[in-house]
């Protein structure tokens, strides 16, 4: 399936404008990855509108670099992507920061895939298409859990 949208604009796409990634300490940062950039943008905009700092990208490779280099509090990623796929991102994220919640979304919906991704450490699994409020609730819960997990003691 060709990817018409995987074009120049993809690398730099945080709708919010902070120059430095870490300069709003209280605001959680969510990385949204989907090879359809428009999808990533919709989700990122929604998250931004609800007070998160959201980064959108259509490249798995770029997402991987950001996971390594920046403070990312939660990852929302598509599964089937050319190059670095969602499950690779999930595994990389689990290795870099096991407490970081990862929410996967996919159009290939099967129960078994859901089981596989959650046993691989995904926090939640969203079959496409889904309601944005469902995604917001999921991200919210995931970050609450991380905060409770990380700051509780």
């Amino acid at each position, binding site marked *: 399936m060709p990817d018409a949208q995987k074009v120049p604009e993809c690398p730099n796409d945080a709708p919010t404008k902070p120059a430095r990634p870490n300069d709003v300490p209280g605001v959680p940062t969510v990385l949204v990855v989907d090879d359809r950039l428009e999808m990533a943008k919709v989700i990122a905009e929604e998250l931004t*509108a609800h007070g998160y700092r959201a980064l959108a990208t259509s490249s798995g490779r770029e997402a991987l670099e950001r996971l390594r280099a920046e403070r990312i509090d939660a990852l929302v990623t598509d599964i089937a992507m050319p190059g670095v796929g969602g*499950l690779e991102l999930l595994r990389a994220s689990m290795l870099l920061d096991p407490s970081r919640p990862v929410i996967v979304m996919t*159009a290939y919906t099967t129960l078994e895939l859901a089981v596989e991704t959650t046993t691989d450490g995904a926090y939640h699994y969203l079959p496409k298409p*889904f309601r*944005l409020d469902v995604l917001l609730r999921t991200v919210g819960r995931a970050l609450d859990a991380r905060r409770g997990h990380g700051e509780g003691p």
Partner: protein
Amino acid sequence: MLAAIGVVTAIAWWDSRRESEAIFRDLGTEQSLVAAIAARDLAAHLAALRENPSLGLHLQGADDAANSQEVRPEDLLGNPASLEQPGEFRLFLAPPNEPSLMAMDGSVVSSAAVRAALEHGLDVFRLDRAQARAIGLVARTAMAGLARVDGGSLGRWGVVAVATAARQRDREDRAFWRFVLGVGVATGLVLAFGGAALRTQRRELQAQRELAVAAVEHQRDEQLSRAQRVATMGTFAMGIVHEVSTPLGIIMGRAEQIRARAADGERNVLAAQAILGQVDRIQTIVRRFLDMARGGRPSLSRTNAAELVRAAAASVQHRFAKASVLLVTDTSQDVHEVQCDRALLEQAIVNLLLNACEACAPGGHVELALRSDGERVAFVVTDDGVGISSDSAKRATDPFFTTKTAGTGFGLAIASEIAKSHRGDLSIGPHGERGTRACVEIPAVISGGAHA
């Protein structure tokens, strides 16, 4: 059959022997009758000679006879010369006190055996071939009829009638050979017809077997094409769901955002609501289509990759046999399990195998090998067929692209889609000097997961 022919021949032989014994018996009786009749004539002549002594008696050839009267032997027996048949039948007189036998033509033969038989008072005597020849008959078994006449003062005379069974025997022999010929011809016919029937039957059996094989092949082809149709449907359905889901997600998201921003404007809310409703509807239809295409079978399962290879190879084996192409599988490498839609992935491999088979001339080779680097599992199909140009390799997975006259152009496109739906890839390229390498690569199931 040969035993039956043997038995029939033995029965014929035995029957002809019995028949010839009967002939000899009858011949003997006949000769003794002839001898007895001749003996009565002889007795009458001897009596006449005794009453008229002036006639005297001098048998021709009997030099020492005292009487002067010459009598020819045939005169003593009336006129039996007409009975003589050269070599076949002879009539003899056995004069008293002489070891020889006197024939009707005046010739003299000697046969100790016949004289002995006379003296022993036999009526019938069998002569072997040598004895028959000695008394001037053809060298065949002969029967002699014997009669004795008491001539009083003229001594004791004997009459011997001898006949060979040559004619009867010849007839008998001809009958026997006719019989043998008959049996032979009958046997030949039976053998010929039997052989022909056997050959026909064998040919029919062969034809039946070929029909059965063709039927099985046809059935397998049917199964293969049914599986292909199902896979095609399933793959298309999955492709559609995948392609449609993300745009639907985007529409849904944007509509939700519009609805949220237009909280006060009633009409915009309704419009966004309508969009969301229609998206739901499309989603339902698409999912239902996917379920239908899958035919209700479970989609993903953990599967032993080697088993998958064997199943794929088995389902195309008959095609390879028909095309005289050798298919070998290599599952030697220890491979992880794969998480897959078994039917679909098998179909992807089947499509690669069929392509490879069709690329090969008779006598070609195709190998299906299982390879793994621990993270990914590769199903690699290589052939030594016509090969592939780099341009064709690039376009190989496009739907409708085909270099075959009878191809639909779907096989590799479907295989590629199936690979993608398993988060894998299909790659195609040249192999060796000529030939093609096609490879479906999908992630392996990593045991233990990534919990640590």
